[in-house]
């Protein structure tokens, strides 16, 4: 998952991004967390307001991930495809 991060980012940054993304995904897909009607918010059962609030929460988390992974301005123009070609699962080198 962290492999999608641009090269040049520290493992810590990638780790944080991975954790944030995993949190958003489990928060949505772990249905027992929110499959109930209480506590209510106004007239809205928990099931509905939890998911509606999750939307902006996920947006904020994705935005943080984007900021963490963003290429520094002025640098990406000079470094296209800067990933070292030695990635374990990349390229067809091992099959050639």
């Amino acid at each position: 998952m962290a492999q999608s991060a641009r090269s040049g980012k520290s493992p810590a940054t990638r780790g944080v991004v991975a954790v944030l993304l995993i949190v958003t995904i489990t928060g949505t897909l772990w249905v027992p967390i929110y499959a109930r009607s209480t506590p209510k918010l106004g007239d809205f059962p928990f099931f509905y307001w939890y998911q509606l609030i999750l939307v902006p929460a996920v947006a904020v988390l994705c935005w943080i991930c984007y900021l963490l992974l963003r290429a520094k301005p002025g640098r990406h123009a000079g470094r296209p495809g800067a990933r070292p070609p030695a990635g374990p699962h990349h390229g067809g080198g091992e099959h050639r």
Partner: protein
Amino acid sequence: MTHVNTVSFAILLVSFLVVTMIGFGAAKWRPAEDPMQLNEWGLGGRGFGTFVSWFLIGGDIYTAYTFIAVPALVYATGAAGFYALSYSIVVFPVVFIFAPKLWSVARARGYVTPGEFARGRHGSQGLGLAVTVTGILATMPYIALQLVGIESVLTVVGIGGDSASVLVRDLPLIIAFAVVSGYTYLAGLRAPAMMAFVKDILIYVTVIAAILYIPGKVGGWGHIFATASAHLTSVNPATGKPFGSLAVMPAGEWAYATLALGSALALFVYPHTITGVFAAKRRDVIRRNMALLPAYSLLLGLIALFGFMARAIPAVNAGVKAAGGNAQLSVPLMFARMFPSWFAGIADSTVVVGALVPAAIMSIAAANLFTRNIYKELVNPDATPAQEIRVARLASLIMKVGALGFALALNKTFSINLQLLGGIWILQTLPAIVISLYTRWFHRFALIAGWAAGMAYGTAEAYRTSGGGQAHFGASTAPVFGHLTYIGLVALVLNLAVTVVLTPVFRLVRLQDGYDGTKAADYSADPAAAPAPVIRAGVRVPPNGRVKGTTGGPFAPPSARHARHPGPPA
């Protein structure tokens, strides 16, 4: 419903004309230096920034059918229908992970379709074809369903529907589709990208107005949830069980989660979504959009709540019952009963424009697939860019006529069944597209075998489900080890299992593996603000030649990609 609502219809007509003008005008928007490139027609020149991409991808994902079908599902079954919101929440973190890589490799190699990636990555024509055929098959009924969305609006406005003659009844639909075909033909992806602005303004206005205005008129949210709860807990005479529930029951949790995950993964591999992603100008545009697109999910959540709002309006319930229990009419009926005619017209326009935009993108995506993976691969490998565009334009027309034929000639249920199947099918291309972004370990023939197994299992399993008054294709979930699970996801697991088991077997028997036409550096390439790579016939770059990636990234022209590659030394 013989009475035609003149005001609503007039507004509908005006919106349609405005959108048509925009569609045709789009051909002159950001004109390309060299317009005779498939890149230009089929991907809008790969030049869309954050703003346009947001509208384009949003216009792509949230279709008219979504706006009709999701509230219809909530109207009928309650909480279970809300998985659509869950899925549109989870899709963005998922796409955040995969999409930038796919965008980079497509940009670096000049791929226009996911089929080209599968073919290039695994050096397998068969795999490319499998991805292509699946993509086209899954897209067709999706386009047809956009028509179903338009139809339900027209029925409520009072147009068509009653006439005995098929031609008269469907004339508005035919005209609408002829016009869309016209501007798609001319302007390519630029047309829906521009129309998406209008579509979204309409959607936001309609949804916000409805959510602020209607609940107050029908007795507040407390009353809305109480009415919904009363209906959902009452017993359905057809099944002897309750209609649904207000919060997902423990027995339904697994189905809910697998549907959400499966649909999110499927959404990303649908050709029209990938087309929207490929059209982005920079890698960062995609990531930034994943943080911005959830604005649509919020909208989808509110739209899903329309289902409960409609349930609290007795006139809507009566209308749905009169139409033989067609819940698809609940939202258009709610607009007609609750809004003044002029605003109902705007709300109806939302659905119609919301159908035209994705229909255009889908037909372009399918046309790209056909052109690059069937025409160029099998019919005319030396096609010039001009020939490619000509074929793509024709293919987009044929797609639309086909979809229209689908919608008119076949039972509506058939389209819905096919769309359900389409989701299951398209998910089977995930290993060849998404997982292959990360690993080249899979053997090409193992991938094809896995795909075939997933397709066969998914189709058979979907055929066996009954529900909603149908003996076959009645539901998208089936029990697996005692848990209701989304069929598409089960088929994907089977698909992966077959691929993983067969890969070492094929290696052991020394079945020749394909040549990987991509380089590791392609997957993180980001040719910043440089223009898209331009395909020029006759320029030959050796397939293994590294082209310095400062502007367009390493890019093999079609002549090189179709050259016979040396296989791996035995």
